[in-house]
């Protein structure tokens, strides 16, 4: 699905969402109020400049105090890899964007991620993974690193990795594997109206962070939930 198709499905009455240099901002009428849209389109890398444009839009919404839901749409590259970005402190910019989204969530704005294309590494963490619930459309391709690069770092043959990827979701790129780890909560049905599906997600938002529970249930992160629970239990003993 393209961003234009997504927006048409969300806002049958029209919207003000624009894309500039791959950065998505705007809003549209949604149910009784507004839905704010921010994100990255067109496999664009996220650098210091882009992160600030998105965080500005999110903080403006928090200051407005209308508690409007925020949809973070993502078809991005990884973080922008450049000397300039790191010189300026890219880690602060990406963390700032994530913090803005987490603040919005704490300030009663439902935050929903929607990955419909690619995303990777720092860009993924600062956007889609900083929402309360992350949905995906079929065909989305989140990854930490592509398999050829994993082969380079791990010094394992690509064919071996491809074979391992079939049975081991924990390292391999792709939507199914991110669903299995619990990072992606739900895959939407492109055959059904999108606005209703997003509205249902908002209506059923759960408090807390249930990604490790999902990862355990789905088998993609078999031990994380138990480990964090064990730390909490030992910390609770005087």
């Amino acid at each position, binding site marked *: 699905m393209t961003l234009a198709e997504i927006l048409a499905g969300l806002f049958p009455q029209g919207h003000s969402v624009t894309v500039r240099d791959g950065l998505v901002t705007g809003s549209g009428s949604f149910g009784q109020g507004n839905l704010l849209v921010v994100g990255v389109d067109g496999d664009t890398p996220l650098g*210091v*400049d882009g992160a*600030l444009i998105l965080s*500005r839009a999110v*903080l403006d919404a*928090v*200051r407005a105090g209308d508690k409007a839901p925020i949809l973070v749409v993502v078809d991005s590259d990884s*973080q922008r*890899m*450049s*000397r*300039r*970005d*790191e*010189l*300026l*402190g*890219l*880690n*602060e*910019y*990406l*963390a*700032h964007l*994530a*913090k803005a989204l987490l*603040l919005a969530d*704490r*300030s009663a704005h439902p935050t929903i991620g929607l990955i419909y294309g690619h995303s990777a590494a*720092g860009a993924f*963490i600062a956007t889609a*993974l*900083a929402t309360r619930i992350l949905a995906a459309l079929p065909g989305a391709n989140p*990854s*930490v*690193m592509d398999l050829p690069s*994993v082969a380079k770092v*791990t010094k394992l043959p690509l064919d071996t990795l491809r074979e*391992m990827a079939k049975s081991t*979701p*924990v*390292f*391999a790129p792709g939507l199914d*594997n*991110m669903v*299995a*780890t619990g*990072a992606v909560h739900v895959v939407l049905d492109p055959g059904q109206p999108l606005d209703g599906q997003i509205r249902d997600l908002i209506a059923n938002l759960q408090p807390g962070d249930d*990604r*490790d529970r999902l990862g355990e249930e789905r088998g993609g*992160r078999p*031990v*994380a939930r138990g*480990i*964090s629970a*064990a*730390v*909490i239990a030992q*910390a*609770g003993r005087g």
Partner: protein
Amino acid sequence: MAGAHAASTDPDALSWYEATARQRVVALADPGSFQEFLPPTERRMSPHLPLFDLPRAFDDGIVVGRAALDGKPVLVAAQEGRFMGGAFGEIHGAKLVGLLRAALTLKPAAVLILFDTGGVRLQEANAGETAIAETMRAIVDVRAAGIPVIGLIGGRAGCYGGGGLIAGTCSRLAVSEGGRISVSGPEVIETNKGAEEFDSRDRALVWRTMGGKHRRLIGGADAFCTDSVSAFREAALDLIGRAPAFDLATLEAEQARLESRIARFGDCRDATEIWARLGVNDSEAVPAMDTRAFDETVSRVREADHDAR
């Protein structure tokens, strides 16, 4: 502590850079106060590394527990840069997430994170990436509950990838000369964009661009330490006492701070140009400055100190 090891945990003598994660924690805390959760004796080891024929660690490369710092209760996590580059695997990340979640009920005086990480452990990439997102959410929850989260950065592996994003989520950061904070590492930039964009073998360039002094000067870190455990302890105590709140005002201030940084330095090619614009008289001399000279330089740079994090 056996007598033979006493010298190696003397906080004044112990190099933060050279120390192991466990040595750092033990020497940082009040003597005898550190108590580890899921210690190595429990052998909580990665279920995934054997698939890659890689050795495992009994603690999966991170030490978590409780301690006292100047008599105050704190929770501490320390990454071990010597095991898989301190990278976030499933268990490694889950231990940090559990510690932060425990802070919400225990309400310690602070949570200290001793970063030493290359980022996500690629053999467990999806689990590591998700754990980083969970960690950032948990840090925000802890900060919003009024508990400072302090990052200490001065280890061999630096603080790269998702580690850099977690660091940017903390209330305050202390860094030493050897500490590097960055998202993309030098090799990653060079592999993807070529040596003309970033020559990873140019170590001076790496330190100027990502190192502790540059981060301190531009306000990317809040304290600069000599490479000793006692210096990090002193910095941690100071930073706990002046941690910013996590609220809209803080993030609005950070937005303005980061916008101003791009407006003022966005056209700079090298850190020395930024330092000169910050008013550092002899910017070429910064890399060689000792801590006292550097602290004096920092004290004249307005951008270095702020509550906008």
